[in-house]
């Protein structure tokens, strides 16, 4: 299945991510598909190699899904890596997409999780509309 997005679809997703996550303190947010295509990048990704980040994140998500299956889970729907200065939070958006949120130590994980949940609901609506 191919994904074709119009300018309006992209703008709508960008706005949703920007208002819910970047405004709340996330440094950079990427929406990718499971094949590692970068769909939206938002925030301050200029200094990051976002293409590599997308490829490795999709692989990371796939690999942990296999770990989940080994222990009898279908999938881990969210992953979180804590760094000294920067943290990264991955969440699945439906079956085909992954939302990657980077945030610093001054932002709480709880807030990010709350806002991610809200963002995902809206993104799913848009993506379902595009796919149908």
């Amino acid at each position, binding site marked *: 299945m*191919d994904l*074709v997005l119009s300018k309006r679809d*992209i703008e709508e997703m960008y706005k949703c991510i920007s208002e819910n996550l970047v405004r709340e303190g996330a440094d950079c947010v990427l929406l990718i*598909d499971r*094949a*590692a295509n970068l769909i939206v990048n938002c925030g301050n990704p200029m200094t990051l190699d976002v293409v590599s980040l997308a490829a490795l994140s999709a692989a990371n998500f796939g690999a942990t899904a296999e770990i989940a299956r080994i222990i009898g889970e279908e999938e881990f729907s969210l992953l979180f890596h804590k760094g000294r200065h920067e943290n990264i939070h991955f969440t699945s958006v439906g079956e085909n997409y992954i939302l990657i949120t980077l945030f610093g130590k001054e932002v709480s994980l709880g807030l990010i999780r709350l806002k991610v949940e809200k963002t995902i609901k809206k993104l799913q609506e848009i993506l379902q509309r595009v796919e149908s």
Partner: protein
Amino acid sequence: MAFIDFSKREIQCKIVYYGPGRGGKTTNLLYIHKAMTENVRGKMVSIDTKGDRTLFFDFLPLSLGSIHNMSIKIQLYTVPGQVMYNASRKLVLKGVDGVVFVADSLRVRRANNLESLANLEENLRGENLDMTRIPLVLQYNKRDLADGEIPLMTIEELDEDLNSQLHVPSFPGSAIKGTGVFETLREISKITVKQVHEKLLKR
């Protein structure tokens, strides 16, 4: 799964280099990375590499000009060839748009080629893809060894073994010297982008 972004006027496709272990998939990507200029290629990422085997995948993004005002971004991946890493191969095949099968010309690797091609067919089926329909190109690698003492399969034998039913484009190559590497890349890019473009026009 190709991704088409009308806001950036960009088409993204995924091409996977498949084939038996130690056949030269990573060497193909390394040669492309070395030979292309920085404005065309992105950063090559290799992960979990122990010795000369790929344990997960290699990744190389390329920008290949434009078609109908849409710029073409291609992402090249390799898979681990060894039989036991099938779970990783399945992961890398997710959303694939085109495949290069890098066959090993060494006569002793004949069974490995056949086994790997059968494995490709099976894993594509798992992704609801048909090997006879997906853009596919064969590369018969290690032809530079033809003058040495190690027995190689002839091109005809390789064609008979691997391409008698598929009838897809095939290229003799030597990934280490660069022979056939760009011919293979050019062909797979052309047919992959063409198929994505045709699908796009149908919508």
